């Protein structure tokens, strides 16, 4: 079995939501998917999308059993795809442009908020798609054997011929990246743009990413960026490895500018607390950040660094080996 994987570089991520927009028009602006973000970008620290998803008891426990899991309530935690009173605004029957339901939460409600006390505030962006896990909890949980992981590329798909809408996958996925489609009574999720891949086009979120943060390729392709970043340099690591699903989306963890002391002097301490990063990315994050810093140091001195050259990505096309 081969595995397609994606590396997302959180130091280059602009939080611009072009990926979200690209995915939206490619797949989710229609057909009961309107509320879904197969790709979302959330601000961390933050509640994420859907709200508080990391707090559900889901994924695998230490003994190899599936945890109980929960289904996030719609619409409270996903955010309602508001419709607007454009027509009434146009004809003067409405005074103000308003969403059609109370706006108390959205998929990006706490954008740029983060944490810390001014001026030592901090935040970063975390773009997320389905992790197309090696040990997918959704797949294991499905009573109808409707979730499949493809032999040729490891893409995890909900087979809509088999899905009966039991929603066990939604419960089981600790990343909450499977969604219930009310129009068809079945679940749907990110398909890693397999129809695009089959035409030689990278996934929409990756090809259209203007921050150039997404590298796509097979994990065993030693010439590819993905292999170099994940296997060789070990700077790309999965989100919440403790969930036990062995994700195939990897992140280059975020550096941050230094904190100030009470006198307003610059210190050596980065803004984002290491403990927080460890909670998100596991203890490997320390090594990954140390490697990044030391390789950046080489470049600063004018020395060569294969790692930095890979992350810089001189040619957009070379970020993708599909």
């Amino acid at each position, binding site marked *: 079995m081969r595995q397609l994987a994606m590396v997302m570089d959180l130091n280059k991520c602009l939080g611009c939501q072009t990926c979200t927009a690209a995915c939206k028009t490619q797949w989710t602006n229609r057909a009961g998917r309107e509320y879904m973000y197969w790709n979302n970008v959330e601000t961390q620290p933050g509640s994420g999308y859907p709200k508080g998803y990391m707090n559900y008891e889901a994924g695998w426990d230490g003994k190899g059993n599936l945890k109980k899991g929960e289904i996030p309530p719609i619409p409270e935690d996903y955010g309602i795809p508001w419709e607007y009173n454009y027509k009434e605004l146009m004809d003067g029957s409405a005074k103000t442009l308003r969403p059609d339901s109370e706006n108390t939460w959205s*998929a990006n409600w706490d954008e*740029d908020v983060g944490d810390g006390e*001014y001026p030592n505030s901090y935040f970063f962006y975390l773009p997320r798609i389905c992790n197309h896990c090696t040990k997918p909890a959704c797949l294991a949980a499905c009573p109808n054997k409707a979730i499949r992981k493809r032999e040729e590329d490891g893409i995890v798909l909900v087979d809509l011929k088999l899905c009966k809408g039991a929603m066990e996958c939604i419960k089981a996925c600790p990343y909450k990246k499977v969604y219930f489609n009310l129009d068809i009574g079945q679940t749907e999720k990110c398909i890693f743009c397999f*129809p695009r891949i*089959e035409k030689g086009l990278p996934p929409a979120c990756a*090809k259209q990413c203007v921050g150039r943060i997404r590298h796509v390729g097979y994990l065993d392709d030693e010439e590819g960026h993905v292999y170099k970043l994940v296997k060789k340099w070990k700077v790309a690591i999965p989100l919440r490895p403790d969930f036990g699903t062995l994700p195939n989306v990897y992140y280059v963890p975020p550096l941050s500018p230094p904190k100030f002391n009470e006198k307003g002097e610059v210190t050596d301490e980065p803004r984002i607390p290491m403990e927080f990063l460890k909670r998100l990315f596991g203890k490997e994050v320390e090594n990954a950040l140390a490697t990044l810093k030391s390789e950046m140091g080489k470049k600063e001195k004018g020395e060569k660094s294969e790692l930095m050259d890979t*992350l*810089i990505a*001189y040619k957009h096309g070379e970020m993708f080996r599909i």
Partner: protein
Amino acid sequence: MDINRREFIKVSAAAGAATMLYPACFTQSEKGVYVPEELRSVSDFTLDLYKNELVGTRGSSTGYSPHCVNCKGNCAWQTFEKDGRIVREEQVAGYPQIAPDIPDANPRGCNKGALHSQSLYEGDRILYPMKRAGARGERKWKRISWDEALEEIAEKVVDMASKGEFEKIMVHAGTGILSPVRRSAALRFGSLLGAVRFNVASAVGDMFPGATIAYGISTVGCTSEAWYEADYLLLWGINPTVTRIPDAHYIYEGKYRGSRVVSISPDYNPTARQSSLWIPINPGTDSFLAMSMSYAIIKEGLYDREFIREQTNLPFLIKVKDGRFLRESDLMKGGEDNTFYYYDENKEGIVKVRGSVGSNELTLELGDIKPALEGIFKIKNKDGEEIEVTTVFEMIKREVEKFPPEDTQKFTGINPGIVYDEARRFAKAKKAIIMQGYRVHKYFWGVLTCWGAALMLALTGHAGRRGGLDIDNEWGLGDLGLLGSPKPARFGSGFLGEWMDGEMWRSFLSHYDDGELKAKAGIDKKGLLGQIDKAVKEEGFPYFGKPRLMFLFHDNRFSHDSAQKQTEKAILDSVDLYVNVNYRIDSSSSLSDIILPSVTNYESYEVRIDPGYGRFANIMLPPPGLKLHGEVKSEWEICMLLCKKIQEAARRKGIGKIDDPKLKTTRNLDTLYEDFITVGDKEIKDYKGVLEWVMGRMPALQGATIEKAREKGFLVPGRAAGQTSPLYPDRPFYPFEFQVQLKQPYFTTSGRQQFYVDEEFYMKLGFATPTGREPVRPKRYPFAYYTPHTRYGIHTTWRMNKYHLRLQRGEPAIYINPKIAADKGVRDGDRVRVFNDVGEMFVMAKLHSGTPQNAIWIEHAWENLQFKDGKGYNNVVPGVITPLEIVGNYGHMSFNPFWDGNQITSETSVDIEKM
């Protein structure tokens, strides 16, 4: 879609009751593989479903398009048409790499571009001509035919023009169409009628007068590739992660390459979070920081003597007694005013400088002259009297001496150690770039901040290939005058036009405190108003009076104008007929008398070349299968048909050519249509024709045709695109290589980078050199209020789009420090009232730890229609004009496209309360 909550809960409950199955075979069967073989295949039903969906979104015909709003992006997109409609867009991502060691520009684009297709068919799209059927702003409309609309407008035009009231007709194309083809229609129409239009950049407050003082022009900047190469990048009052989305990757790729990226901003914004260092600064105090940086550079001897001798006016001689330049007119009767002098250390005497406006030698070459930078010298004037002269550099040193970092900390909040450390790194960098955004000049002292940054760069020799100021590079379009200005037109000052039309002095008088203004600016309210009056009457800033017939093409003045509600009334009360050409309902079209529906991006023909961060010209060609929505028309067709109706009405009434004596021409109503469609020897009746004409006139496009552009969706401009340096095909663009390498003079009176201005008003207020000043926002309200750009719109464009709103909070929100919110009893998501003497607005509170405790801010350019009672983000912003921008008649500081002022919008104080 309708997410029925009850229905979902029902489904959830059913799912909860099901027994959870756990396949026993789900174990590690081979190395690293857990999924059993039987679960590795997918039905054709599922595969085909998604494959067919993809085919649907790739369309049956394709076109190309950039998005031609007021954006510094400019990106090649492919558009996909199905059943006559645009269904999706995707970046072309095919730009060639310019050199192997510089990342390519792909896939230029952003979230707005990626969603434009969704706004084409949204409910706020204007599809038919509409006439107001209620009070202005009530938005009660009657649908009318194109003929009815055009005939009513034509009657009004003929009536006014026949009385010679050209000055009372305004035909203004706003920032919604800053591209040569679409813009040309409105310009041409207005020019033929002798109507008024404003300097568009000035009207919205996007001028860089601080740069114009230094360089004589303000289209100064690099391609974004240069950010990658720079060793030191100072992002000052600019948030490129949010506002330069297509280009920002070069900054962070540069950081991986080893550059230092420093961000200066009051709030911890998305750019700050990606920087090597964020310097939090108190709002509006940036001019102090610029002076303290120069202080450190000079104190530590980090300046480049050879560079400043040749490239700046720092060695120019100043008369000690009155602080004025030593001019030829001081030394001989009938001498030139714009000829200046050095003290030559080799000859030990004064010599004329070359390359100034008064010199006939167009070079900066010093030859064997060694201009003194320091010292006091005695010379004889034309009357034989001995006078003392010194250098501009001495004057600068004297001024800089007032701003040691230890002293300015109390204003800026910045630790002096940071200033010294960064000054050293900046000065020693091989290539250093200071980027400043349009925000800088939104402050009262923005001119000083920009001029001061230019001084930092000049002192350290960062120019040409060593870096420089990066604000607003534009590529040369070539001469399109025949198209847009066939006859002399009335080109008005933008900021003064808005100020006068909107009677903004009312809010200026109410908001600012005379004592504070006098103490900090050296001038009181009356004095400033007096100078503004003088600027209009004597200093050459043209103002033609309030319009009675107003055409706005894609201009949203009622959103961007200060003191919104007061301004609306002041402008509209004197307008008889207001025609708005637009593709959507916005803060301005909603107030109009007649709306004419136009095309938007994807539906038109266009070429966009001028924004200078990118180096490619992008083409707009509609997909062949596209059907125009509703009854929308191109701006060219709208203006052409207007001309036709005006001509018919004029002929019917026996009106022919009307004298316009002020502009020494005639306005030929009886041939207006023929005059409109006849461009040189060509007859042009549609946008394709305009595009062909325009492309043929652009030297940078080297004769490329539409067919050539259709191959890839973009064109690669040649060297001629660069205005102060060549645009090399294989390396980043930096400004002023013609000056630094080829020794051509700058565009200033001195012919050099200029850091001394002996204009009377400047001298009186102490602005002869860059200096530092305290903010003048009144202290009686506790919070500074500022309005930076958002990632979800280019100004108001796309702000009402539901896909963008769903990724925010669905309505406008203001950023507040959590401690301040707690003091005010405000929780996240509460609605608050923001107020001051100018007005009020009601918004949601967003608690944000990256916001300082002395400020609150909101992203600018929400539509007024998105706020309760239509009171928008500018309803609390007073009108104000900085004294630095109302001086004219001083060499290069005279009204021209580079010398006009700004609407200052961030010199405001407000308070908030919970609703």
